[in-house]
């Protein structure tokens, strides 16, 4: 299986159409690797393993044909896990957003950087947004210590990445300045724009929201050049049908409301 990484400028796990489109693409990548019901694991490290980030992930994938799990390094006390075995057995590993500096520091402390590189070489699809996207590149522009600043990533992907590109103008400005000052060029990704890297070739750009774009950013003779990439539009799937038991519960609830005087 070819090595694959999906890097996103920003998104969330909600039921809004662009978020569903992103979740379905991840499910497809995972299913292609598994050939059956895939395993998808979230690494919420960059957020400090917040319940909110983990909960939203399960909401997105809990009702889909896959086995979702979370590997929460800050919660191992209550729920010990074999880190290496768990990660290498996944079909897709998703990395959530938050502090890029803390993400890489905590991974390094737990030897996760090496395990993730191995998983990638073995064909486990990797994905992530924001800090969880920049971590795969040689460098990114993080706001983990307040102001935008350059931070080195794991370097599985060449060059650099700037996320929330047109959504956070000060981050984009810091990126353009850094590339102008000699940082390796790379890409800028708006929220809901992404790059899919497959094997050694250049990435394909995609977008889940009209107007969200991916840019290639290079230092040229006359300054930094920002070129929008042609992107494939990811259509949102129809909302998942309600599960039969939930639908039944809602029917009964609305009947009761109608007959409230009965107590």
């Amino acid at each position, binding site marked *: 299986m070819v090595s694959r990484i999906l890097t996103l400028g920003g998104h969330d796990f909600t039921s809004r159409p662009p978020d569903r489109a992103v979740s379905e693409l991840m499910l497809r990548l995972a299913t292609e690797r598994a050939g059956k019901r895939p395993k998808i694991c979230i690494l919420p490290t960059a957020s400090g393993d917040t319940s909110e980030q983990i909960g939203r992930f399960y909401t997105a994938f809990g009702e889909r044909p896959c086995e979702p799990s979370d590997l929460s390094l*800050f919660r191992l006390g209550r729920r010990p896990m*074999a880190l290496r075995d768990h990660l290498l057995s996944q079909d897709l590993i998703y990395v959530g957003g938050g502090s890029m500096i803390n993400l890489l520091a905590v991974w390094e402390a737990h030897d996760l950087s090496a395990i993730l590189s191995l998983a990638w070489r073995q064909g486990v699809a990797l994905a992530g947004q924001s800090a969880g996207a920049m971590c795969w590149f040689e460098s990114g522009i993080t706001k983990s210590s307040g102001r935008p600043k350059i931070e080195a990533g794991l370097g599985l992907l060449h060059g650099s990445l700037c996320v929330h590109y047109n959504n956070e103008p000060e981050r984009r400005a810091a990126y353009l300045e850094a590339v102008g000052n000699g940082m390796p060029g790379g890409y800028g990704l708006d929220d809901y724009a992404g790059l899919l890297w497959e094997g050694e070739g250049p990435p394909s750009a995609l977008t889940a929201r009209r107007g969200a774009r991916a840019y290639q950013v290079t230092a040229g003779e006359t300054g930094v050049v920002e070129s929008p990439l042609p992107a494939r539009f990811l259509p949102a799937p129809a909302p998942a049908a309600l599960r039969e038991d939930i639908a039944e519960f809602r029917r009964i609830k609305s009947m009761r409301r109608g007959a409230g005087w009965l107590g």
Partner: protein
Amino acid sequence: METVPRQIVAFGGGGFSMESGNPLLDEYVLGLCRSERPRVCFLPSASGDADHYVVRFYRAFPAERCEANHISLFRREQGPEDLRAHLLSQDLIYVGGGSVVSLLGVWRAHGIDRILREAWEAGVVLCGLSAGSLCWFEEAVTGFHGPPRRVKGLGLLPFSNCVHYEPTSERRLAYHAMLREGMRPGYAAEDSAGLHFIGRELHRAIASRPAARGYWLDAAADGVVETRLATTYLA
């Protein structure tokens, strides 16, 4: 010139994190501060800066008793920009429990390890429980991530350390094995027991329960010698 003592109080467990309604250990560390209304900074890094933990800290350290604040290294945009100036201006730095491996990783990434040494040398009282105890020592036993294993701490105290040192715990056996294998001698504390160091010397062992104890451990020719420390019940 007056020299301020360097002080660390390392709890085996206890304080507001574990002993709701028993403020004895927390009162003890507040009592070490010279100020009437001390500035107390909570570092919840080992928990991933869990919101519920930060809330419990503020409840346990109310405004009428002290000037409480916290630093979240996962949300730096909300906190003080100059971490060094902020930490050096505190009377007490209180480190919460959780993963000591993650704690030390995050601290190093933000340069907190160096700042805490500086704060200690400047007389800011350092304290904490569990991971917030282990971190101050040269070496420690962590059981957070599965089977107990050895980790290297900040090394302010030139000993090993084991927390939640209950008589039947897996940690206790693991600690003894590590000492036999050459881990440096050190101190252990049961839940509700604390070890108060002045400089690099143990000043006294304290407890918020009458039966809780601290211990000194050293390897000998025929095994490990465990010495129960005279421990002062704080009530």
